[in-house]
């Protein structure tokens, strides 16, 4: 893929959030609508397009922990808030190469994680689990080797302790399991078809109603063995 090749050519092994999502979108994995901007003029155009509430994020392949660095502004409701957030982000990323990502605010209370890791013994393995802040705290995750069959994907969702989060709970719709299966299979496919992809971290995958959407993503590359 071009995005991957370019990044490697530039000597980078990390794709920015926007680049990572472009890879996902290429494989038809649903991602949040978003536009990359680098001045207030394009910011306003982007807000028109995306609408409110919006999310503004610092976006650079040199930044990985956006939350810790205070580079995410959620629930932006008007131009004023947007301008403020934009100014703060551009100030904070300072000298780093980067821009600001204007994103639709995905509404949903349930956050999942879907990922890929290239294991030295088992090759590309797809991960599924509880997302957001719970990924690290609870480590409620499961793995399957790529390529995944539908039943593997269904089973790995059932494997996590919190699998009931996918059911109709507390008035929420049940998760669209067919869509989740499809995403899991495709993430495995990315790993199989792109040797340079070392890790994928889609966290969170937010359940917007029943539909999963990749709200943030990170792809790590490695140079292929020559």
């Amino acid at each position: 893929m071009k995005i991957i090749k370019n990044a490697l050519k530039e000597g980078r092994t990390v794709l920015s959030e926007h680049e990572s999502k472009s890879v996902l979108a290429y494989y038809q994995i649903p991602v949040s609508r978003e536009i990359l901007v680098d001045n207030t003029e394009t910011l306003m155009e982007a807000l028109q397009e995306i609408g409110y509430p919006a999310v503004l994020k610092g976006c650079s392949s040199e930044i990985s922990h956006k939350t810790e660095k205070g580079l995410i502004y959620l629930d932006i409701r008007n131009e004023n808030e947007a301008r403020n957030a934009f100014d703060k982000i551009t100030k904070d990323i300072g000298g780093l190469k980067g821009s600001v990502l204007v994103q639709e605010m995905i509404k949903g209370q349930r956050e999942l994680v879907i990922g890929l890791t290239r294991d030295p013994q088992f090759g590309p393995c797809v991960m599924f689990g509880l997302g957001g802040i719970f990924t690290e705290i609870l480590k409620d995750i499961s793995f399957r080797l790529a390529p995944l069959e539908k039943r593997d994907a269904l089973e790995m969702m059932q494997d996590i302790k919190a699998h009931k989060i996918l059911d109709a709970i507390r008035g929420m719709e049940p998760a669209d399991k067919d869509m989740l299966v499809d995403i899991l299979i495709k993430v495995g496919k990315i790993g199989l078809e792109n040797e340079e992809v070392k890790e994928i971290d889609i966290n969170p995958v937010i359940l917007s109603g029943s539909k999963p959407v990749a709200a943030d993503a990170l792809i790590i590359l490695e140079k292929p063995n020559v």
Partner: protein
Amino acid sequence: MKKFFYPSSMVVFGVADNPRNLAKNILSNCKNMGFSGKLYAVGKKPGTVHGLNIVDNPNDLPKGIDLAVILVPARYVTETIEVCGKKEIRRVIISTGGFRELGDESSDIEKDLLFAARKYDIRFIGPNCIGIICTDSKICTPFTPMQYARFKKGTASLIVQSGGVTTQSAYHFSDEHIGFSKIISAGNKLNITELDLIKYLIDDKDTEQIHLYLESIEDGRELIRLAKSSNKPVIIFKSNVSHAASQIAKSHTAALSNNDKIVGGAFKQAGIIRAKNIQDLTIAARALKLPPLKGNRLVAISLSGGFSVILGDACESYGFECPALPRELMEKIEDFRRGGVIRMSNPMDFGDIHDIKALVFTLERCLALNYIDGLILSFMYEPEMAKMFGDGIGSPEQILRFFKKICQDTNKPIALSFFSVREYIEEFKRINTFPVFNDSVESVRAMWMLREYWRLRKG
């Protein structure tokens, strides 16, 4: 590969006529167990061990011996491989330790060893292992004296990465009356790996189940592919999952620690049953002799109220359902009660029923229900009571034959355990015509393993 297990001749390198020599135990183990092939001993000095002359000049060996076992210091292993090559020996077990398990993985000594083996087209098991025990050919290559008379023949075969776990598994499978066909201690897996051994066992006619103890997995993808292709159940006890264990494993069999959650997921994908310890392997071995368990719905029966409660808890914790049974059937069973005090449900407390006919009736009727997939029974055994039962199911042999027949007729499993004196339970296990589990909770775990096996099988 077959001649590793069925050699018609075997030579041991590193034998000496002194009490501290270990290699000579390999010869006595084989002889004592009843290995009928021709044996040779090679050592530095002439002498006699176990009635064999030690050959001090390997040139005197005949050509083309089927198998060599090498237990000489690590620095002499490569030259011993050269000797084997020149003597047209193509199969070797290298028992010697002191290779990658001691440090630098790519030690020169290993490279030399692999180079020499390739040069002469030699395949070898090990190094750092105790080789093979086969209850059929009676080959027994561990270098410590074995209690060979305890080994029991069976249809399970085991591939084990550690020597100590190899001998313990041989004893434990025998003591549990499951027995084994072949046990292979694979050691550092430098040339022949668990994958080669699995391939052999998949085709071995005496092997019905393949059990493994692994500390490391080098080629996970191939392991998964092989397990998927196997019609024989594959059960793996994978250790080295913690940080602490991986420190020992590094100095043990040069194991790399695999991400345990990846291993767990991969095993499920391949239909591999994962065991927690050696005892767990034996539970799986017994469970897999039962007819298939094709669903989650069980009837649990005990002749004790307490054990029916225990069974109920265990069933729930393993994700089994104990569905309500037809009231009409319950009433018929209730008619057999003595005191008329216990209302029948599922799990079923048979404490008030002392009539074997009632039990037969209940088992047959429950297993005939199309929404019941299997049955768990915690039975009481007391010889005097059994005589009262009469009706051709008074003796342990008759009791087991009876359960076997019901399982065969219905093609549904019964996981059977007894509450009784330990020696009676052992007696049932010894008869071994139908699986008997050590206690009620173990019988539920057995059903879970059986369920996993049939659930995970693809196609």
